[in-house]
């Protein structure tokens, strides 16, 4: 694929993610996964899960993190030099931000008209519960043979699920799961 076509495809994908990514955070995951894993194959499902993990342990929203990461790896993965890959990162990060920027500018300018607008509230009445479903689908789509390699994966899942429910810090849980992974899976 020509570099310019790749840049264009990245731009369009992340613009779409920015425009339709309602609910922020995990609610954007099914859309990001569909674009970068299923449709374009820029990342494997394992890479994608790893980005989610890296996002938990690094600053910033997951949409930016995946945009920056995908922009770099997609271009570098096609054999282009790091300079072009950095440009890919910048394109993805900008394009995922543009819809937010424009829409929030409109929101700020017409704040008082939108605040109690019944049509606005009506548009959100079904969307809000739907966003919960999108987050659930993110979890379901990641419960696959790539991320759950054996019964030990399910034990880690169950322990972290309960701990997270009890409000244990997610970064701590990721670090502990990583240590557990090392002892359970490293071929000593």
């Amino acid at each position, binding site marked *: 694929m020509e570099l310019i076509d790749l840049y264009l495809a990245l731009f369009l994908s992340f613009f779409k993610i920015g425009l339709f990514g309602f609910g922020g955070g995990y609610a954007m995951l099914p859309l990001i996964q569909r674009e970068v894993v299923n449709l374009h194959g820029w990342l494997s499902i394992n890479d994608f899960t790893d980005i989610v993990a890296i996002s938990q342990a690094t600053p910033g929203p997951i949409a930016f993190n995946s945009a920056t990461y995908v922009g770099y790896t997609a271009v570098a993965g096609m054999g282009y030099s790091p300079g072009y890959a950095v440009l890919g990162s910048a394109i993805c990060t900008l394009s995922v931000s543009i819809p937010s920027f424009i829409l929030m500018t409109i929101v700020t300018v017409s704040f008082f008209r939108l605040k109690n607008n019944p049509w606005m509230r009506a548009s959100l009445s079904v969307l809000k519960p739907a966003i919960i479903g999108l987050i659930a689908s993110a979890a379901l789509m990641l419960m696959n043979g790539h991320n759950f390699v054996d019964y030990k994966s399910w034990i880690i899942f169950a322990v972290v699920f309960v701990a997270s429910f009890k409000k244990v810090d997610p970064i701590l849980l990721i670090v502990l*799961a990583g240590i557990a992974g090392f002892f359970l899976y490293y071929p000593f």
Partner: protein
Amino acid sequence: MSGIKHCWELFLLFFKIGAFTFGGGYAMIPIIRTEVVHKKGWLIDDEFMDMLALAQSMPGPIALNTAVFVGRKRMGFKGSLSTAAGIILPSFIVILLIAMVFTQFKDNPVVESVFKGIRPAVVALIAAPLLGLGKSAGVKRSTLWIPVAVALSVWLLKVSPVIIVLVAILLGILHFVYLKRITGKRDGTD
């Protein structure tokens, strides 16, 4: 001159928030609130909460939406550019460095085993808050079918989330129009 100073102040504040808030956009909200409402006094708390409700109704990362609102409100277009750049740059720099390094260590057996442990944990971290989120989104027994139908259609039928969003907005509006027609009331969001 003071305009540039204000923009620089906005940029620095959101850069700081972007750099030191781990765990995604939602973790940033209380910190933005403390800085913008309590420390700087740029917005009153009511304004901030109303803004948050709107920022959450718009697509895109909530931290960015909030940043754009605060910047725009304070210094117009230049202000929103400053806050957006501030909130975006820290994660851009960090993830770029990780992408450059991580891609070379991915197949290292130590890294591979560590991530085998982390992957199921990530899925648990996504799944665990669902109940609480459902409650705060106002999901009741009568509306429980909505998230269930969405989750199943995206997961099993591979329906695009774009379609889900468009259909959900359309259904919300149709429901509203229907209620308005049968009751004549203006408020029919429930």
